[in-house]
């Protein structure tokens, strides 16, 4: 028993050793290719200002220093704060509305649902540039230009097609009997959604949050057009650091790195909800 566990008999072809080695070499080469920009980002951000120049961009710094990060943070901080204040509500509200949409389209069918759903999806394919000017005019009329609330509203609305799609796809997979059961137990639509459907939909919620947070955080165009200097999100602020007369590469790189941390963080934190099995136990063994 013990020896069997230590040396399991594998079914494998004669060439498998070579095939495996080759496969790993190819994969490693592709990973390196993929990571080259990240390498330049990291090393440039940690270089001494004097060492930064395009001709020496591939070289490692003589000494690693985090000083540049400290230097750019005060400039970046207001934009960073604005982005958090904007992206968090934009992604939460958009995900909740998307969950309600998806639930109704998947499980609380109404006449015409098959027409409404494609129409909602249509929203994903409208180019932002096409509606930029009318949108700004409309928000000006509503007195929502300049501050963050207009930007939040726009991100909520533009997130709805994708969040609806994510939740609808998820809710389609859950059993109809679960919804029927909640109804017979006395729950109406809202309470069925809140008590039964949403708790099961945590994986969809995580996907939706990651997607929405990332796209709201990374957005530049809406932030530039709809906000004034005090309310600039981090992407616009970043552009200002990098967009001066002489480009201080190390500062640009350090700022970019800082600005990308929240999206990475959201992925790391939310990613664990991706796990499967949240439906386990609902149905027959």
């Amino acid at each position, binding site marked *: 028993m013990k020896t069997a566990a230590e040396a399991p008999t594998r079914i494998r072809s004669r060439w498998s050793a070579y095939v495996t080695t080759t496969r790993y070499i190819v994969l490693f080469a592709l990973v390196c290719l993929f990571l080259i920009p990240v390498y330049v980002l990291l090393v440039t951000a940690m270089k001494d200002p004097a060492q930064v120049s395009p001709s020496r961009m591939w070289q490692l710094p003589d000494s690693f220093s985090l000083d540049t990060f400290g230097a750019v943070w005060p400039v970046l901080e207001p934009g960073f704060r604005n982005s958090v204040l904007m992206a968090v509500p934009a992604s939460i509200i958009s995900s909740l509305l998307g969950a309600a949409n998806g639930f109704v389209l998947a499980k609380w069918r109404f006449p015409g649902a098959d027409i409404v759903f494609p129409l909602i999806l249509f929203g994903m394919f409208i180019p932002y540039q096409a509606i930029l000017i009318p949108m700004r005019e409309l928000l000006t009329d509503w007195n929502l230009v300049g501050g963050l609330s207009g930007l939040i509203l726009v991100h909520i609305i533009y997130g709805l097609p994708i969040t609806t799609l994510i939740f609808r796809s998820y809710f389609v997979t859950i*059993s109809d*009997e679960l919804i029927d*059961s909640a109804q017979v137990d006395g729950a*109406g639509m809202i309470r069925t959604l809140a008590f039964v459907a949403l708790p099961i939909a945590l994986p969809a919620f995580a996907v939706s949050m990651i997607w929405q947070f990332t796209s709201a955080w990374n957005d530049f165009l809406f932030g530039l057009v709809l906000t004034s200097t005090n309310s600039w999100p981090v992407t616009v602020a970043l552009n200002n650091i990098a967009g001066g007369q002489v480009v201080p590469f190390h500062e640009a790189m350090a700022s970019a790195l800082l600005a990308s941390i929240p999206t990475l963080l959201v992925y790391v934190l939310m990613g664990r909800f991706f796990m499967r099995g949240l439906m386990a*136990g609902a149905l*027959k*063994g």
Partner: protein
Amino acid sequence: MSEKTSENQAAPATTLTAAISTREPVGIRLENVSKRFRGGVEAIKDVTLAVAPGEFVVLVGPSGCGKSTLLRVLAGLEEVSSGRIHIGDKDVTTQLPQQRDVAMVFQSYALYPRMSVRGNIGFGLRMRGIGKDERRRRVEEVAQVLGLEHLLDRRPAALSGGQRQRVAMGRAIVREPQVFLMDEPLSNLDAKLRVSMRAQLTLLHKRLGVTTVYVTHDQTEAMTLGQRVAVLRDGVLQQVDTPQQLFHHPVNLFVAAFIGSPSMNFVHATVSNGAASFAGVRIPVRPDSPLARGDRKVIVGVRPTSLSLASGNGQPELAVTPAIVEDLGDERFVIFDVDAPRVDTEATRAAVEAQAADDALLVPLDRATFTARLPAGTPVTVGEPITVALDPDRLHFFDPATGASLEEATSLTRGASSR
């Protein structure tokens, strides 16, 4: 109670007594209920059915016969296309499921995966605004009845199939509804557990006395559980009767073929001069039967238990050669051909396919195939001719064109009127 015993047995009957207060049972009335789905499929056609207060009625039929739809209509999960539904003296036809005082147990159990067993059982009470303390008390009472006390804080995922089934039952019981609706609640259990749960369901119904409508495709389950059984075919109610009546006095070919295992044997025969004959056997018809006068073609139905080895007691006899002998321990199923045309009507086919009966279909001949259910010790060998006797008093006669029972003409009206 150990894990093992709680899996297979409910708590002892004594603990079940006053734990759950029951209300005055109410009846259910379906009047000319029809259900047509968008797309034109008519799942239920003009069903009229009355369930007495406290009665246990089983809806049975092959898959697609509309029995589950009928249950969903009762629950309010589907709207009727026409007809009325009454629960007690209230017309609930247009009420939402949450307004009707019914509880439903689903085939898949449909437990809420993110709630504990306690949360699952108490959900209906919570939705109905019952306070936390009372909820807790009632959930614990029901949990005790069903032997779930030690599992209250578990999630459904951590339960076995039988335990999940009991949580689903508990969720229905705790609400003390006017009506229980059960949609094949035992079909996902393994065979042994199913038999013991069946007995427990009967006990539970006796104790609670709540009007229950139970859907199954398993005729054994229907016969053992139902005080009355309603047989459905293609959305049409065929017969509503006690299991005994259904078995001994089926109103048509479909009911005759559907009820009973192994299925009833059928053969084409002609009646003349007061006797039915097929394959060279003449079977005298009872003189009081409407068949005793006149000549006509009929379908004769013979239960496998109405056949025995000939013992020379004057019963009509049939010389046959066994093709298959199935030994079941305390009985033997003997399958043989009869020299008469096979009965292959839509009704018998629908009923037999529903039970996936392989006995009749294995011999695809144009001759009729019979199954006889004989005692274990009967000396029968495949290929060696035997003589079997038919009990002339236990034959069934059907009209070949309509499938309606001929011999049971009197009980037909009785069966149809006892709705």
